[in-house]
């Protein structure tokens, strides 16, 4: 057996104009857990997809067990003992867990499901998984589905495992369980690659860490010889102190309030559970949480895109009138002349129309303007030109379909459009995801500008450093509930992290110091959020 399970040499992958991986070389040793660390858009997933046969490299060589190989399909990857667990589960929802697990496996033509189920049960009990092989995928929760994915790979006897951000959707206990399994595999001599951007997990689980930045390979270090700070430096490049100009909130008053809002998803699961908070004009309210804790639904229910089961969403108009937004459609909100802007997470899937040019995308917000049957294209075109100039959007012209722009430029177009309407409520989800540092700072400046102009800004973010330095208050979501609202100027990353995972505020900690000195120690977080809103309600 060769000491290196996998070796990549100068692997390059391009998508049209974009180079996703630029001459990347790295090795995975036999019997180790290697973390691949990098920010969003650094090319981690693309690189791993070339190992699992989803993409084919444009240049470079791949060696498995010291032998040069060509991986043209996932089938080839299997043959080489490589199994990948994707972030988006590759499961077939009308089939059972067992059927999914044996999918693509060779064996007797006739399926002996009893035997297969038995094999799977033996495997799951050995590793301590909780899985019913006969359950259909469409009846399963997210973590059950992930279990199926992992069992699938183990069942196939893969000795090289690649996990793409496996912890993003898991609870802390589930993460512990996963790490336990991964360590068991390492003891079996298997090699594991885990893609992540969570430093604490990197430190906890991996033997070595390989760092990618913007498609480039930066280096590999032994975990025991490094620190989170050093890794961050490698990840973001030259050390950048976030120097966001944050003004103190001025002339704040209530602008938007949620009272006990509950939203269920299609499966009947509560994605928002009794959410209460107040957003004020002239301040930025950050929203933090493990991904999938209800951030998306929270913003969407304000925008009128979610069915709110119970609770109220209230808006304080500049005139002083209080208007109810609950169950209003986006069109009704528009007709109420509420200047509500929203930069959703899925830019090309929700905020923009990929096949349309910049002008057409400006029209998403403005096409209804003016009387009559015809849509005005002149104003939107002017706006598009302005945004291109002001935000330095790299595009051949305003007539280019936005699909052809890079991620950062797409985001600039979207944010530019949403800010153009001088919003009173501005909601942004992951506004700098995939953006370079300069663009990110341009966006921070824009958000701060909006705040100073008196908008109530809601900003969902994943980078806690940014949230702490950008926002005035931070609301932490945990499994669809409000874990607490803290003052961004006094909180710490550790505190936020604790709230995100535990679902409540650390004991003894004074919360909401920015808010009329309400001490919250001892009371449960949701009570606190409610009492807060209760006091400020009419």
């Amino acid at each position, binding site marked *: 057996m060769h000491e290196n399970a996998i070796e990549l040499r100068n692997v390059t992958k391009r998508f049209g104009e974009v180079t996703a991986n630029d001459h990347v070389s790295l090795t995975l040793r036999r019997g180790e857990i290697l973390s691949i660390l990098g920010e969003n858009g650094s090319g981690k997933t693309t690189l791993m997809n070339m190992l699992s046969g989803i993409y084919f490299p444009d240049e470079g060589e791949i060696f498995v067990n010291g*032998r040069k190989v060509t991986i043209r399909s996932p089938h080839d990857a299997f043959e080489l003992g490589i199994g990948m667990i994707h972030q988006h589960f590759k499961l077939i929802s009308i089939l059972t867990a067992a059927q999914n697990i044996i999918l693509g496996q060779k064996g007797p033509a006739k399926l002996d499901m009893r035997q297969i189920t038995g094999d799977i049960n033996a495997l799951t009990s050995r590793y301590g998984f909780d899985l019913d092989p006969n359950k259909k995928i469409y009846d399963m929760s997210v973590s059950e589905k992930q279990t199926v994915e992992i069992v699938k790979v183990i069942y196939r006897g893969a000795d090289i495992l690649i996990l793409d951000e496996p912890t993003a959707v898991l609870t802390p206990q589930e993460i512990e369980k996963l790490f336990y399994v991964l360590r068991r595999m390492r003891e079996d001599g298997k090699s594991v690659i885990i893609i992540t951007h969570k430093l604490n997990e990197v430190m906890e689980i991996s033997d070595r860490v390989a760092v990618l930045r913007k498609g480039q390979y930066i280096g590999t270090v032994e975990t025991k010889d490094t620190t989170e700070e050093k890794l961050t430096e490698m990840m973001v490049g030259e050390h950048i102190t976030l120097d966001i100009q944050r003004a103190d909130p001025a002339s704040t008053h209530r602008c938007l309030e949620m009272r006990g809002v509950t939203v269920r998803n299609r499966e009947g699961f509560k994605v928002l559970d009794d959410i209460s908070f107040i957003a004020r004009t002239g301040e930025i309210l950050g929203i933090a949480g493990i991904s999938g804790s209800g951030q998306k639904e929270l913003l969407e229910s304000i925008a009128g895109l979610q069915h709110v089961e119970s609770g109220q969403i209230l808006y304080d108009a500049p005139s002083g009138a209080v208007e109810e937004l609950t169950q209003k459609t986006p*069109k009704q*909100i528009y007709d109420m002349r509420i200047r509500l802007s929203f930069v959703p997470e899925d830019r090309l899937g*929700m905020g923009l*129309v990929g096949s349309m040019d910049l002008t057409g995308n400006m029209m998403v917000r403005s096409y209804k303007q003016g009387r009559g049957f015809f*849509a005005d294209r002149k104003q939107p075109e002017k706006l598009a030109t302005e945004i291109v100039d002001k935000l330095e959007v790299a595009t051949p012209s305003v007539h280019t379909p936005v699909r052809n722009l890079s991620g950062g430029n797409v985001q600039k177009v979207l944010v530019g459009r949403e800010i153009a309407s001088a919003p009173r409520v501005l909601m942004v989800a992951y506004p700098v995801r995939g953006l370079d540092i300069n663009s990110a700072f341009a966006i921070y400046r824009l958000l701060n500008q909006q705040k100073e102009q008196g908008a109530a800004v809601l900003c969902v973010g994943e980078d806690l450093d940014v949230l702490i330095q950008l926002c005035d208050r931070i609301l932490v979501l945990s499994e669809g509930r409000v874990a607490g609202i803290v003052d961004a100027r006094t909180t710490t990353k550790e505190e936020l992290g604790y709230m995100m995972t535990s679902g409540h505020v650390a004991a003894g900690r004074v919360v909401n110091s920015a808010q009329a000195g309400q001490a919250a120690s001892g009371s449960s977080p949701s009570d606190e959020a409610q009492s807060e809103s209760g006091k400020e309600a009419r």
Partner: protein
Amino acid sequence: MAAKRTKRVIHMVKRGNMTKFTAILVRILAVILAMIVCGFVVVGVTGDNPVGVYRGIWDGAFGTGQRGWVTVRETVTLLLIAVGLVPAFKMRYWNLGAEGQILMGGLVSAAVLLYLGPIFEDWLLILIMLAASMAAGLLWGLLPAVFKAYFNTNETLFTLMMNYVAMQIVTFFVILWESPKGSNHVGIINAAHNEGWFPQILGQPYLLDIIIVAVVMALVFIYMTRTKQGYELTVVGESVNTARYAGINVRAVIIRTVLLSSAICGLAGAMIVGGASHTISTSTAGGRGFTAIIVAWMSQFSPVAMIAVSLMLSFMDQGAVQTASQFGLNENVSDIITGILLFFLIGCEFFVRYRLEVTTVEIEDGKERA
């Protein structure tokens, strides 16, 4: 120790951007190839000289003024249906029900001719006929649209089934109206005084058809590119989520757009019955509802391309009928030739979008599978 050797592997790469000129060249090449293949087929079957056959096709389509006009008429009819399909397709709604919508439009046109022919003036009759046919087509499109909007019922299959319901309804009325009794044919309606027939304009029999289609086509393209509603349907087609985000009432847009689409297809029924056949039968639509789908899709909504494709298909169709009688084949040879032509045109789009790259890969013996 495994020996090294190399192997060539073909894989597909998406093209950045092909120039318009090259793209057109590829398509012309496809037509030429299709012609050659058709030539072989014809020769293989009949033993006749393919050049003679193609001359026959040309002759059949444009040999005389009369034939030329018929070809033009068929072209604009096909074009009208294709134009009607454009809004629905742009919204990514697969309206395979044009055939039925044409039939229903044709059916009420025939009814107008039969029952109102003796009562009203010609111009009024034609106006009533146009309006009624649009209403009929619209009604035929309504049901699948509503179910698509509310329950996301598969519209491809629903509209397809509606065609055959329409066909039976037409058969029902054919028997009701047949003349002479028992013939299973309606016969030429108002043969004696031509009430409600599309009139000749400036001595040209089918100028009215051309005018109607030109007007509808211009209106549809203005609607698609300049109006708020056209913008809305494009957004819905691209992403329902974005449409909801933009405050678009998705259900209303789906229903409205499909109604527009099917009304235009219904209008084509009036044009066929009032302007050409002056009768009604199950073959009134004659597969044009399906052919138009191909026209609309292949032209990628470009008006010029739509005219070109419609003209080419009608040309082949008309020409083949002539060739068939000239060479003693039956007229169905036109379907075979059209089919082959379509296969090539559909297939060549791949080469407009992708190019093939041959890369040489070094492999070790025994480690490579095909």
